[in-house]
């Protein structure tokens, strides 16, 4: 069944006529995603291939059933575009942009919560239910259907892990990029909960990194709520304390969010932690007793 996105999910692209927007729209279409409309203020009435472009989200949803929207909008304007999608009643919003101001993100989260919209990101590569629907920028060829659910904070590292799985014959049910920012919508616990309920998903791979406390919270949740096997890979073992390593979250502060602390939390929950990315499939073999 997969989670969040399905074969019949209808998708809107905000910022469809831009460089990134048009390129990735075509990539998503070639993956099989049902893109029903795009929005670019000032460009209503145009088309991208055979996808109609609208001036506003309200105009797009008047003509089409839209289940999810993805933003290819420069960070300074992302708040307005996100509000527009939420206000139009769209239930899944993928916030792709990096560098959205933190206060804008908090405002988006508050409005989304009030309207019941699920937000993915910001600073995410998106979500893909393999073989069914991809909303994001991940390279198509690594995301083949299967029974492993993957949830990750970082993008390229997640592709790396998924490519390792694919090479060993493991396809994926759904792959969710939470995003690298300090405040993001979906978190590990939300996604673990969905994977636990999903019949297609047999095992879960969680890709975390140093900084913040979301891995520790996930470990605590797994202990009493997840019966399926979970395998973890954590990046940042070698990172020196106090240095910011790119992601806003990847900073070790006040003794919290350390690599060792996270490993201990998972081990206490009975969850194996891979030392290196390429070890994940082997640990999965053991967990699934292949």
């Amino acid at each position, binding site marked *: 069944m997969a989670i969040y996105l399905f074969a019949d999910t209808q998708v809107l692209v905000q910022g469809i006529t831009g460089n*990134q927007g048009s390129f990735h729209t075509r990539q998503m279409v070639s993956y099989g995603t049902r893109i029903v409309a795009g929005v670019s203020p000032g460009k209503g009435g145009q088309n991208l291939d055979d996808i109609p472009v609208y001036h506003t989200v309200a105009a797009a949803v008047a003509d089409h059933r839209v289940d999810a929207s993805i933003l290819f909008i420069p*960070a*300074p304007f992302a708040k307005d575009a996100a509000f527009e999608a939420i206000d139009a009643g769209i239930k899944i919003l993928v916030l792709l942009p990096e*560098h*959205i*101001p*933190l*206060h*804008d*993100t*908090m*405002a988006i*989260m*508050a*409005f989304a919560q*009030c309207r019941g919209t699920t937000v993915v990101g910001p600073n995410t*590569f998106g979500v893909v239910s393999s073989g069914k629907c991809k909303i994001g*920028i*991940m*390279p198509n060829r690594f995301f083949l259907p299967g029974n492993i659910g993957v949830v*990750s*904070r*970082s*993008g*390229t*590292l*997640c*592709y*790396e892990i998924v*490519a390792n799985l694919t090479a060993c014959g493991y396809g994926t049910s759904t792959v969710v990029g939470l995003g*690298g920012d*300090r*405040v*993001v*919508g979906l*978190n590990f616990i939300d996604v673990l909960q969905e994977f636990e309920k999903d019949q297609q998903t047999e095992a879960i791979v969680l*890709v975390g*990194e*140093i900084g*913040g*406390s*979301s891995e520790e*919270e996930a470990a605590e949740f797994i202990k009493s709520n997840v019966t399926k096997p979970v395998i973890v890979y954590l*990046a*940042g*073992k*070698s*990172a*020196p304390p106090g*240095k*910011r*390593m*790119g*992601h806003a*979250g*990847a900073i070790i502060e*006040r003794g919290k969010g350390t690599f060792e602390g996270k490993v201990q939390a998972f081990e206490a929950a009975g969850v194996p932690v891979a030392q*290196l*990315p*390429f070890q994940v499939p082997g640990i999965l073999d053991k967990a699934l007793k292949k």
Partner: protein
Amino acid sequence: MKLYEYMGKELLAEYGIPIPEGGVAATAEEAAELAGKIGSVVLKAQILSGKRGKAGGICFTDNYVEASRVAADLLGSQLNGYQVEAVLVEKKLQIDREFYLAISVDSAARKPIILASAKGGIDIEDVPEEDLVKMNLDVTVGMQPFVTREITRRLGVTDVVAKQIAEILGKLYRLFVEMDAELVEINPLVISGETVIAADAKITIDDDALFRQSSLPTVQERTAAEKQAHELGLSYVELDGEIAVMANGAGITMATLDLIQFYGGTAANFLDAGGGAGIEQTAKALELLLAKKPKVILINIFGGITRCDDVAKAFAYVKQNGGIPVPVVFRLVGTNEERGREILLAEGINAYKLMHEAAQKAVEIVKGN
């Protein structure tokens, strides 16, 4: 972007939060002049680090000659790894109690959080959980009177003090929102008699919002190379090892560093070229790595939106134009991989497919030297 204490206090004052009388001095003469005017003073070294008191960066005196001498000692000195370029000279407060007050961002709740304690001061990090008041704020309603009533109730203060703290909280939240702060922290918030005064200010502004905060001064915390990388749109951190690293994506760059460590090597830097880096950006990133004269360069590319042929072209360009005098180990997979491999082969480089093999090779080269 972290602000110096004196900049933070200027902001507090702008928003009407009481701060001690004083001013900032860049020379011993300026410090003496301020001390002569104020009388009994405290001199505080302006660095972007806490624990200044324990490092000797905070001194008290009621004599302007001594103030001049202390300022002369502090200015230009190294404190906690930072060079002192300014000293804040302020009226010494009569301190009856020290509180802690901060507004920050709670990642788990996705909301702002107020942190307060009646046990503020130097050891705030060791204050037990039960002495810390924490309250999330809903951004749609903001700092309402019911919030400040609850916080001052839990702090257990007199009505006179509660009224002042409530006012400070309102102003502090307005500053937090309007200035796009990630953190506004007052530690200690001093109770002097019946007056509440902010004796320190630690403010961090969200880097991603600096484009709309043009009134703020620029505070540079990066090294020269880190600054250059930032201007190129690269995420770069200097480390002190031997293998220069470039990868695309923060997570995979960290994983690359972990692999180097696993095989017994050390990384010279963290360089995340980001997703979708083009030819020019990649070439500049390579030049940045070369400038640090590493023993070997390890490039780990998993092309999603980044195109392998672009990275290979950038490498060929730098090699043909400036030359690359150190061994380079490449790992290249993903979008346009075949084309990228061909370009590298023409430059005499056989790229690896697996990142751990590439990392292992880079470490072997260093050890072989």
